[in-house]
């Protein structure tokens, strides 16, 4: 399990510059996976691209007419959902970061021999079906449950309501519940890369900072945080990307005001049967993610994507 540490799920090892030229060898090694990705991912993606430029309907069939207007149409109609998805994904990412950072630090530096066990516990939720997990959240946040009771008794619901995260004095069916679900689901993807980088962090630097008159807060911002950026970058990517496309959480824990773009794609694809617009929306989503990610990665200055 210490391996999951290495899972790095992103963090780049410092000694990690590839160093050899191997003639054919790398290509032979890559062949199976690459073949798989090309046949089962690239090819469908290309046909998806062509689909996004077709016109027609289910009864008369679709023909490729290079109808780029679909993209403009998709954007103009669904920009609010795009925006909302980005905002939700971003706030979920922020949430996972806020919760995941102390947890990763705790596991890396304070957990002693419990380290491995805690790492497994972080990943273990994946072994319980996603629907059961989400239903468990429904049980936890239910109107008559103790959590809601606590929130009501302490007036926290009013606070949440005031900032627009909930309404109706309940927790379920709100932006709050959706964000909670998203954070919960993607926390492991944040914690693992953060853990990998924080564990490697040279704690002597913290002593040095203290020695140079930095108190706890300054030590964090001036030393720990900048040094953990690579982990923060991979963690945020691995959280943000799937969260932006997710809709299970918004569907089961949200309300009619919390529809995310994944739900729209789903509806266009399955219910309206408007394949071009569904394909176009998918492409816009992928493109948006990749542009955001590329810009982010460049700004953060890490060499490789994930």
């Amino acid at each position, binding site marked *: 399990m210490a391996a999951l540490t290495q899972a790095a799920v992103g963090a780049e090892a410092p000694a990690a510059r590839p160093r050899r030229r191997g003639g054919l060898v790398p290509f032979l090694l890559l062949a199976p996976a690459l073949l798989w990705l090309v046949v089962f991912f690239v090819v469908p993606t290309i046909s998806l691209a062509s689909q996004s430029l077709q016109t027609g309907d289910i009864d008369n069939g679709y023909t490729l007419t290079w109808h780029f207007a679909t993209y403009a149409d998709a954007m103009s109609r669904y920009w609010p959902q795009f925006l909302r998805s980005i905002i939700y994904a971003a706030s979920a990412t922020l949430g996972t970061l806020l919760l995941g950072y102390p947890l990763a630090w*705790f596991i890396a530096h304070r957990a002693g021999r419990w380290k491995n066990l805690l790492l497994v516990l972080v990943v273990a939720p994946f072994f319980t*079906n996603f629907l059961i997990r989400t239903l468990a959240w429904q049980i936890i946040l239910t109107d008559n449950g103790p959590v809601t009771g606590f929130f009501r008794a302490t007036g926290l619901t009013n606070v949440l309501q005031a900032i627009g995260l909930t309404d109706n004095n309940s927790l379920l069916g709100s932006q709050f519940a959706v964000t909670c679900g998203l954070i919960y689901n993607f926390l492991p993807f944040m914690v693992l890369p953060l853990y990998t980088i924080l564990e490697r962090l040279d704690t002597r630097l913290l002593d040095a900072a203290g020695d140079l008159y930095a108190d706890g807060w300054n030590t964090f911002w001036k030393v720990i945080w900048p040094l953990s950026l690579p982990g923060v970058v991979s963690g945020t990517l691995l959280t943000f990307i799937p969260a932006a496309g997710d809709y299970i959480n918004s569907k089961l824990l949200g309300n009619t005001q919390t529809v995310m773009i*994944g739900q729209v794609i789903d509806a266009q694809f399955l219910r309206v049967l408007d394949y071009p617009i569904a394909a176009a929306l998918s492409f816009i989503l992928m493109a948006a993610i990749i542009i955001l990610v590329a810009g982010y990665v460049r700004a953060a200055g890490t060499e490789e*994507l994930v």
Partner: protein
Amino acid sequence: MAWLRRNLVVIIGLLVMAYIMVPNLVVTIFSFNKPNGRYNYEWNQFSLDAWLNPCSSAGMCEALGLSLWVAVAASLAATVMGTMAAFALGRYRFKGRSATNLLVFFPMATPEVVMGSSLLTLFIAMGIPSGQLTILIAHILFTVSFVITTVKARVASLDPALEQAAADLYANPTQAFWKVTFPLVAPGIAAGALLAFALSFDDYIVTNFNAGASTVTFPMYVWGAAQRGTPVQINVVGTVMFFGALAIVGIGQLIGARLRVGSRRKEAL
């Protein structure tokens, strides 16, 4: 006050840990429930019924079996292919390396509905009938990227001097790989396989598109069942899987610790 300041991170860490564990705890608790009605959402009465008759919910155990089989097969295949690719990417410089890195990254960024449906279209065009094979292909596709990323990090942090030492000690490249490289990368591979297994075992959307007429995986079963009620047996499976994962790792660590303690004791003698 000083105590609080020093242990703040521990307290927060434990709270977040609790946040992660609470849903699992709920699942576990409700696996001992005897619900009043078909929905298992309110505590009614303690009962071991579901634990004693785990398969009494029609089709669940078959679905579970299928899911386990698919997860094992897919994670195995993804692990083999992903490990090979990770070696290529972590080890060699070659033309198109960054393009390949990008290609590996894309499937992780693709919405599942899109991946599921476009794969289905492809299978039909290729004439591959939907069923276990198509599920397997799809699962390998979306897990292989995770394996590659995971193993690549491990491969990259491997000291190249070790393989050279093996060569220096008369091991030809094949022997050097199996005796030195592989055992050292193994933890990374295990992590990748574990992640692949978890992702495969938990996937619904992509699977649902590519499952044939009579292949129902466990997530599909759960999704279907949840429409009309949630049999307690689902919680039993969730609980078993969760503690199973813990146990496997726990035992692994125990064996490791035993070995270490053993050698330390010898040292003391």
